[in-house]
């Protein structure tokens, strides 16, 4: 065997090496091409929406963002109503979802016995795996009736008479509407937000916590004054990640928001969101201006979620870097 290797002509080895070099170059170009494909995909998506939404922006100008009209028959479109619905449902989702996510993360990392941490964490993450259309069906057929029978009448009776904030809780208990959508969205973002929080809580140096305990801090004081301040950036990053999801969530909201072109102060009222408007109307939009207006709404959603997700990513990267250094 060693004889065979020794008798191997030098030229063959040289050719082999050169073959390898050529192969390496080709392989490099292939993987680079695929990598760049990912980069191009995002820009192509953005460009296609700008391209298609251009007609709407040119026709309606800045008024597209501020007008309330949405009339396919009269060919007049403007985006304030769906934008408002998107913002209000997302805000409700954050108000409800963030404290619950924080509680879950604290419970899993600080309170629960080691043996049940994994199963509880896994169960909560299971929520993220359920397809969003299932949330929609559950929301429409089970949760909305529950809201209209048990929750909304109580809210209307108790909070309705209070001045100023009472206006948020007036009207008929329909079940569907802004509040129900906000709650369903909150349930959907909880697994994402709480798993980011849990992961960063776990890397808080034990010495930091131990020294606080040594000074006589209670468990909650350690969480409030050591764990959360130490992981602030990543916690906010996780919240932004959840916000990005809430803003763009389509199917669940389409089921429970009511899809009426309507702005109301009361959270009990139905409305619409950008994603729900697109889901309901895009396939039927026959003429160019209608379709362009929907694409323009899509572009607005895309830009907003891009900014939110980019901010989330930057904050999480900064935290990871801190941890690494």
């Amino acid at each position: 065997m060693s004889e065979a290797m020794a008798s191997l002509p030098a030229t063959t080895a040289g050719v082999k090496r050169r073959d390898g070099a050529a192969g390496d170059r080709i392989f490099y170009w292939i993987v680079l091409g695929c990598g760049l494909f990912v980069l191009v995909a995002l820009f192509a998506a953005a460009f296609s929406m700008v391209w298609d939404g251009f007609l709407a922006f040119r026709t309606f100008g800045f008024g597209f963002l501020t007008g309330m009209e949405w009339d396919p028959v009269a060919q007049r479109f403007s985006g304030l109503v769906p934008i408002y619905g998107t913002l209000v449902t997302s805000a409700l989702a954050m108000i409800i979802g963030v404290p619950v996510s924080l509680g879950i993360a604290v419970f899993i990392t600080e309170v629960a016995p080691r043996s049940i941490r994994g199963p509880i964490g896994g169960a909560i993450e299971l929520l993220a795996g359920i397809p969003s259309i299932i949330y929609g069906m559950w929301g429409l057929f089970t949760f909305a009736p529950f809201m209209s029978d048990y929750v909304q009448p109580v809210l209307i009776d108790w909070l309705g008479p209070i001045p100023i904030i009472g206006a948020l809780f007036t009207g008929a208990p329909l079940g569907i509407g802004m509040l129900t959508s906000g709650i369903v969205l909150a349930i959907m973002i909880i697994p994402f937000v709480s798993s980011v929080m849990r992961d960063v809580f776990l890397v808080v140096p034990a010495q930091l916590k131990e020294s606080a305990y040594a000074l006589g801090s209670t468990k909650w004081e350690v969480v409030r004054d050591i764990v959360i301040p130490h992981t602030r950036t990543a916690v906010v990053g996780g919240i932004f990640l959840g916000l990005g999801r809430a803003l763009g969530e389509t199917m669940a909201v389409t089921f429970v928001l009511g899809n009426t072109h309507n702005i109301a102060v009361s959270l009990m009222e139905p409305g619409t969101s950008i994603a729900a408007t697109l889901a309901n109307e895009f396939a039927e939009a026959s003429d160019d201006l209608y379709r362009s207006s929907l694409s323009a709404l899509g572009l607005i959603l895309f830009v907003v979620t891009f900014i939110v997700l980019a901010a989330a990513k930057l904050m999480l990267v900064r935290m990871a870097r801190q941890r690494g250094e």
Partner: protein
Amino acid sequence: MATHSGSIYRRRQIGSMIALSLCGIATVVGLVFLAWILWTTLIHGLSALSPSLVTEMTPPPGEDGGGLANAFMGSLLMVVLAVIIATPIGVLAGTFLSEFSRGKKIGEAIRFVNDILLSAPSIIIGLFVYELVVRPTSRFSGFAGGIALAFIFLPVVVRTTDEMLRLVPDVMREAALSLGIPRWKVTVNILYRAASAGILTGILLAIARISGETAPLLFTALNNQYWSLDMSQPMANIPVVIFQFAMSPYEQWQNLAWAGAFVMTAIVLLLSVGSRAILNRRNAK
């Protein structure tokens, strides 16, 4: 004095107890909703299950009977198409990130964009593929649906391939390269083999994710009431059929929607739980 500081201490203890109890309640709330959603799907779904679900086509409005056979087939075809398109691109792009972009700005940029695509609203992908495929060919089609799913599939595969390859110790690369093996052979024969289980898990997770996607199919594949294997035509698929049937006023349609929802949720959760379990077991070793 002692009693005073004692009462402060007790108050802080009580405060801590209340806060931590609230955390416990938050966890219970999360678990209750999980159980509630799964229970609803199970109850409605099981009562609507029947053999005709997979043997008959979607029924016309208001008619009894019927199943979802064409929709299951359509979903299967589109998911397979997405996997065929996006797996090679995703694995190779992930390879670029982990093996060829160390310390380069372009790698950072691609990783950033990939993470954005990973959480971007899927309905935006639907709009994009509408412009890309449906408009030029001027018809909704199974191809368009598969391509839309491929764009959602891609970033998951890129990310897991990147992460799994980076877990392979550098010693392995160095040992292989020091034998004079070309880099591409090292990557294909050694690194891919070492990371194969992880990459496969990523692909399974991605399949779970696209199997339940509805929004991007609403205006790419649309729907079709009949049995069709022609991917250049509009194509029935489970998520869109569930959406239409659940929103309809017909009880039979709603029942079928629940049956479809049950089957889809079961498949998606089995895929994601199963692949996660494999991954966790490997990581624990």
